[in-house]
């Protein structure tokens, strides 16, 4: 089963409800019949890492270097997913699309 590592920022002053976004993501994946292991265990080997930053400053991006052989990343930055502005309620849907694209990419 493909796995996604969840990494939360410290959450000092989030612009979005991070846990709600992930809850809705899980529901959306379930509705589409997609079986994925979402884990916060940092020791697990995962296929994709989801950086869940509460705001556009995106503290987590400073921590995670994007190296060629490291897992693939998707970054939420407040009401942004990667470099696209997305309203909070549409973030889960946007994430599902990106997860599908990454899992289907030739490099995977």
């Amino acid at each position: 089963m493909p796995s996604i590592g969840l990494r939360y920022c410290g959450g000092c002053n989030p612009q979005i409800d991070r846990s709600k976004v992930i809850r809705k993501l899980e529901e959306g994946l379930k509705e589409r019949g997609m079986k994925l292991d979402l884990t916060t265990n940092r020791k697990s080997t995962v296929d994709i890492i989801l950086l869940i930053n509460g705001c556009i400053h995106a503290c987590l991006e400073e921590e995670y270097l994007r190296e060629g052989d490291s897992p693939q990343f998707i970054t939420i930055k407040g009401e942004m997913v990667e470099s696209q502005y997305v309203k909070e309620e549409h973030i889960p849907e946007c994430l599902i699309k990106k997860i599908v694209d990454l899992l289907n990419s030739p490099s995977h």
Partner: protein
Amino acid sequence: MMNGKEYIDSLRDLNLEVYFFGQKIKSIVDEPMFQPHIHTAAMTYELAHDPEYEQIMTASSHLTGERINRFTHIHHSIDDLVKKVRMMRLLGQKTGTCFQRCVGLDGLNAVYVTTYDIDQKHGTNYHERFKDYLLEVQKNDWMPSGAMTDARGDRSLRPSKQKHPDTYLHIKERLEDGIIVSGMKAHITGAINSHEIITMPTRTMGEEDRDFALSFAIPADAKGVTYIFSRQTNDTRRLDGVLDGGNPKYGIVGGEAIIVFKDVFVPWERVFMAGEYDFTNELVETFAGYHRSNYGGCKVGLADVVIGGSNWIADAHGINNASHIIDKLTEMIAMAETCWSCTLACSYEGYRTPSGAYHIHPLLANVTKLNITRMVYEWMRLAQDIAGGKIITLPSEKDLESPETMEILTECFTGKEGVSPRDIIKMLRLIENMSVGAGLPEAMHGAGSPAAQKIMIARRSGIDRKMELAKIIAGIHKDKYFEEIIGKDETAHWDEVKKKIKGKKVQIY
């Protein structure tokens, strides 16, 4: 990169149509009323060549990798944003006034960010055009003025509904090779001593205002562009001598002007928005964010000067050890450093935009500027308090030099042993210039009036989330962490507590 003198010489190549005091000005560079503003802008060029400041004053172009003046740079990291405000404070310290060039810098960055987003949505080609223009700016080390504020006419009417359409800059005609524009921009800083003009809309536009959703760049001396230079407090003192001006080298505020555009042709390659009204809000807010954060840099640089001047004058009068003086100076320093903290926070909390350029934290930028609209008045009030009533009753330089009055005035302005009375007057004039003049309303209205900041603060505060926080703590909504801590459901917990209280047990747990 040009140095200060080369910048001034480069202005001689321009042929601007400027009016001031009912006259057309023949030479901008040689006009004594304009020279202080030109010297101040020249400082942004000069310091870039000093090894002591080049780390802040220069940057590496993301387009060419070459060393450029930071005033032409697109911020590409948090470090860039931090260095930007350090540069603002430095220049405030070196000039004691507005050095003008930050408006163009913020215009360059705001247009860079917004054109990228316009292209993503509309499939236009503005961003590439703008990058070509930016290359020219960096290569020539140009100073563009940032022309945002329109005359605006009746504020209750949208731009397209104004009786006089020229109160807002707008497209009159769309041609195959460009556009024809008319209108006016008001109180534009550094306009008469800039090489270029970058225009931006002044407000959010609707569909009916499509022709007013406009951004472009033209040479400052483009055909059809005229300038009417504005007055500043005590400006004609510059013509009376050296001393009375207060800051004769660098003047007061930024040397603002009205720019009139009459049927000006702009080629398409220099048009960066032409009708995309749905991006006017982004351009205005992005520019305002950059610009409002600057104020915690430049005005704090000015505060450094006026705090130093206040301490010097207290010392010259023999009162610098008085507890009330120390208290006032400490207040001034604390306020200035509070504003500095705000502006550093804007940069450190900045973020990467889809274009790759970095933007400051918009909420904090508006808070910074709102603090400036209040605290500049407060620290300048304390400077006036320390300096004393003399700042508004000083005699003229001519009387100081007149044989009939020189001796008595020298005696009158004597301070502590060893301090020259003329130096005391110089410092009092500087404090007068900085604390009584146009610098105060400039701190209030420059980069937008306080109401504009409050609108942005209210819009971006996330007050719904704050309500949720309060509801959880008040017990209106579930507190999952509290339940984890007590190891049970909150309602059950309070029922138990109530029972224990009823039983009047002192040790309720």
